[in-house]
């Protein structure tokens, strides 16, 4: 789960990680008020769940409260397009108005989970190449990135903070190394306490006054940890998500929207990804990922159909179900019922395999509805692509 920069900074404050003074605004008037209370040059930053906001015109410096008003007026409501948003961009609903800093140096500090076998742990990554995309740095100059794996049995220790600090050129300065140690300690505690999956402070700024401050912050959370972090769960911003995906999530349907015109409904995540791949192999474009799960009750099938048909790009549907404990005749009845309930007009290919497959296929053929029935995996994909020709 993603959150906004202003929410991340709020969390950092709670864990003693210094962030610039500032507040979130959803109107230009509020932005002006905040700038007034800061009484300094401020920076007005679009709040969206994507990077590259500066290049996209979503970040402006404001020397006066009036300038903050004008900047906020421009940015609020804009469709901000960045290299991370997709061509339509995201509508900006909030801006963060905060103090600027006297930047002496920009550093990078991040945390991820290393999933490699026998290494599974939280890892800190730090680099003097702050303010740049870490993937670019990793590609061009990987030696500039210092990594520190946190041994799970012990947790984060001061010697690890020192490793990173010396690597960043901060180690010899008593004040800076103490500040850095506090920051890394706070970030580690936050990561573990809130089940984060990624933390990125880019840039971590060294100011002319000799302070370390998190000028930008990105924190992602493990979806599977949300049940025990309700305070994080409520930070979710549905406006940042695709509207169909929001409907699907709230209906308990595991759905991801893509750009194609052939929709699919499958039981099982691996088989669902495979079905998308098969559609592409057969010359079509998948419109979505949808895992209807082990239950695939008539109710769930109907919910899934409603979501798939709500996408105006979708011109045909492929249903691919391998029935294990789930019986194919039950699934067939569910499909027939759902198709009738929603008055399904789109052509469908249905491929069933597994328990009671013959009964299932018979039911579909006798339903009077326009289904094409398929047997094999690749055959099913070919048939649905052919429907659109």
């Amino acid at each position, binding site marked *: 789960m993603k959150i906004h920069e202003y929410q991340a900074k709020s969390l950092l404050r709670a864990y003693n990680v210094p962030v610039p003074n500032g507040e979130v605004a959803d109107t230009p008037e509020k932005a002006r008020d905040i700038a007034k209370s800061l009484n300094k040059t401020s920076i007005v930053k679009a709040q969206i769940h994507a990077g590259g906001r500066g290049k996209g015109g979503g970040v402006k410096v404001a020397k006066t409260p009036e300038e903050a008003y004008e900047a906020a007026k421009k940015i609020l409501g804009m469709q901000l397009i960045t290299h991370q948003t997709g061509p339509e961009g995201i509508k900006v609903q909030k801006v963060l108005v905060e103090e600027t800093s006297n930047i002496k140096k920009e550093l990078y500090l991040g945390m991820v989970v290393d999933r490699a076998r026998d290494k599974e742990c939280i890892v800190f990554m730090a680099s003097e190449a702050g303010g740049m995309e870490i993937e670019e740095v990793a590609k061009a100059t990987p030696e500039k990135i210092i990594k520190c794996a946190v041994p799970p049995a012990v947790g984060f220790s001061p010697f690890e903070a020192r490793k990173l600090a010396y690597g960043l050129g901060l180690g010899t300065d008593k004040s800076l190394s103490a500040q850095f140690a506090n920051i890394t300690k706070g970030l580690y505690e936050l990561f573990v306490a809130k089940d984060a999956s990624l933390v990125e402070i880019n840039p971590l700024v060294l100011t002319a006054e000799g302070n370390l401050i998190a000028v930008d912050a990105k924190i992602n959370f493990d979806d599977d940890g949300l049940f025990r972090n309700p305070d994080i769960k409520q930070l979710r911003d549905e406006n940042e998500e695709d509207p169909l995906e929001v409907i699907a999530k709230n209906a308990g349907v595991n759905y991801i929207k893509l750009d194609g015109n052939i929709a699919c409904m499958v039981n099982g995540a691996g088989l669902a990804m495979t079905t998308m791949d098969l559609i592409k192999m057969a010359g079509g474009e998948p419109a979505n*990922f949808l895992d209807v799960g082990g239950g695939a009750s008539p109710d769930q099938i109907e919910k899934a159909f409603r979501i798939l048909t709500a996408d105006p790009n979708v011109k045909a549907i492929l249903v691919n179900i391998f029935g294990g*404990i789930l019986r194919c005749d039950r699934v067939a009845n569910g499909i027939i019922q759902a198709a009738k309930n929603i008055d399904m007009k789109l052509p469908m290919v249905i491929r069933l395999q597994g328990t009671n497959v013959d009964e299932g296929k018979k039911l579909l053929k006798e339903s009077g509805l326009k289904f094409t029935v398929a047997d094999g995996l*690749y055959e099913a994909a070919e048939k649905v692509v052919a429907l659109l020709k």
Partner: protein
Amino acid sequence: MAILLDKNSRVVVQGITGSEGTFHTRESVKFGTKVVAGVTPGKGGMDVDGIPVYNRVADAVEKQGANVAALYTPAAFSADAIIESIEAGIGLIVCMTEGIPVTDMIKVKQVLKTSKARMIGCNCPGITTPGVGKIGFMPSFIHKKGNVGVISRSGTLTYEAIWQLTNLGIGQTTSIGIGGDPIPGSGFVDMLALYEKDPDTVALVMIGEIGGTAEEEAAEFIKANLTKPVVSFIAGRTAPPGRRMGHAGAIISGGKGTADEKFKALEAAGVIVEKNPAEIGKRVQEILAKKKGKKK
């Protein structure tokens, strides 16, 4: 494959009184598995179809000689249940549960490291050894006893592959679902090592997904250590980057973990990669025919 599930396996089902636990225990028993106990804290003293239920895993170990644990426990309590089994001396733990937080699994792996236990899962369909037993919920009808090993991160996609093999008359020694999570109890490498030592297994099917480096690690291992042929399919060539595709572990992060990278790494290690999932069974058939041809 005698090392994981064999005739000496005595299974305790943690979460046996839940609807999933009860249903799949019944299917396991029908398949021939020796389920000797169940554990649900607070429900000790009950029984499920005559299988005694205990409050603690240690009781099941002491009173029924349980040595394998099958978990159908809620995600919130699964790490605790797994560690309880490790501490009780269980040798093989198979966890079907989906939704366990990653930081919990970091902890669990730490405990596993210093124990004698082996874990399969979480978020997996389990292990099936035709003719011996099954733990988990792979449908019973797809399996046939034979000499091919199957290792997979997926659920229903695994059933497709097994069913293809069975329909071609090719049976399996053991089918293992290692699960779809980013930090599994065992990876491909761990299972490949076991299959390499198993005299009954002559060929392998490996089914992977986007995300992480398990397939790349497997490729390295296969190149250095494996004498048996492997056919591999990777799901998710069309998955968009940065999105969790159903499975928590199926996510392309920072540009890494794509299906094409995995196909490439496996191919370079001499694995027979098949991009059309409908052809997995046929590729195995070809290998086995070649082997038979060589023997003449």
